């Protein structure tokens, strides 16, 4: 299993191929379009992070101490963002997720674009993913 840091580095390398925000945007859209849709049963208000410009549904399941996230959004770009986060945080232990610093977000040079909506920016999604991890951590104690 690759560590969070390893995956982050791969993503940083991927993004290093792009010079412009235009290319990065299109790449994130592509990732978003590939994310498989969340089953309707999970698109509940409980799973919703409601923002100003788009909604995100996020859920997590655990298998042998390893967490897996599923998510969807009405914005393809946000789906791309969350797909990136899931690439890093899915299939990790709750501990690793809780402790992840996620420096890659700064390094791929998208912070300002990704943080643009206060309520459902990356921060809110990361917070929710970490809350899930904390929840499963306690469950295991």
């Amino acid at each position, binding site marked *: 299993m690759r560590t969070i840091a390893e995956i982050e580095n791969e993503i940083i390398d991927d993004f290093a191929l792009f010079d*412009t925000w235009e290319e990065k945007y299109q790449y994130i859209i592509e990732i978003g379009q590939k994310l498989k849709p969340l089953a309707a049963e999970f698109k509940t208000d409980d799973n919703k992070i409601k923002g100003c*410009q788009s909604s995100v549904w996020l859920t997590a399941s655990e298998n042998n101490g390893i967490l897996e996230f599923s998510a969807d959004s009405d*914005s393809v770009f946000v789906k791309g963002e969350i797909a990136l986060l899931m690439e890093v945080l899915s299939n990790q232990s709750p501990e690793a997720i809780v402790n992840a610093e996620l420096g890659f977000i700064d390094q791929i040079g998208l912070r300002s674009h990704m943080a643009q909506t206060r309520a459902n920016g990356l921060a809110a999604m990361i917070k929710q993913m970490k809350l899930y991890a904390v929840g499963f951590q306690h469950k295991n104690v």
Partner: protein
Amino acid sequence: MELTSVKSTFDVTAIRKDFPVLSEMPYGKPLVYFDNAATSQKPQVVIDALVNYYSHYNANVHRGVHFLSQKASDAFDVVREKVRGFINASTEREIIFVRGTTEGVNLVAATYGRKNIQKGDTILVSAMEHHSNIVPWQMLCEEKGARLNVIPMNENGELVLDSLEDLLNDNCKFVAVSHTANSLGTINPIKEIIAKAHSKNIPVLVDGAQAVAHDEVDVQDLDCDFFVFSAHKMLGPTGIGALYGKLSLLEEMPPYHGGGEMIKSVSFKGTTWNEVPYKFEAGTPNIADVIAMGAAIDYWNSFDRAAAHQQEIDLLNYCTSKLADIPSVRIIGTAKHKAAVISFIVDKANAMDVGMFLDTKGIAVRTGQHCAEPVMDWFGIPGTIRASFMFYNTMEEVDYFIEQIKKAIQLLAV
């Protein structure tokens, strides 16, 4: 109907040179600034007014006996007359400086509203108000046990006045309505609304935030009781705006903030208020921005406003017809009388995604609810993409915008 890109007689190329931001190159691409309803760009003369003030005569105003203070006071005081002229108030005493539209509405709610609205009364707003002309009234209703009523609108985004007589019943004690709706572009028949309200002796506040930058406003002709606007939407700086109120109403209103300038005399036993408009202007005013707002008004008076207005109408019509040709685009807000604001959605594409795509091309639009959530709810949509024009925008910019919208649809609406 297919319009072609027509050259207006208005010299847009010359006027664009007055606005330094317009030569910015985000991501190396020429800026196409279509977010004017959120805030307008500023001409160099407005920036110069700030620099000049801070570099040469910055001082606190009023009561100062020294040179800088007198120069600052003179420059500050003269703006009240400029604002009066800009909206044709009958005396400069009817002009109160506020932070912007939002503070203006809140000031009226906190003074006129608190004094006059009682349990069981209703306040009437319209279905297409900006949050700033809804929430202050909701808060006042909550405090007083009053109720908010709403003038409905139709699917074109036009107010339906059939029920107005009913809504203006004996309980109705105040009307607050926008001159031009920021989310839809609709220009409302406020003169008619005001006349009807006045026939029942109900005062009317007009939210002029979107109107002042596009139409010449005459508060005496409208006969509105209050009128509010923000400088930042009419070529002026952020942090300043004006509230107009009829003198007779202002005289009877309790003061707003307590502090310096708004008092005649203070003692621990009791305090007396200064005259209108000072009664409503506590503390050190936003001196520099008032002066810069004056420079913005001078700038408005320096060119042919009718021609500038025509340029906006041309942009609106041209862009509307071009968008109408794109099958997956649906324009939200198709009122007969519209300002140069086009809200639209794209089938199967999220508004923010489209906005971000346009951003990568150097085009600045706004996406979302435009602080008018009830409007979005009415149309049953989460938000729109909004392109809003100013006279310094060009037909060529519209062409480029349309081209990029088509690309966005290819990429996103799949």
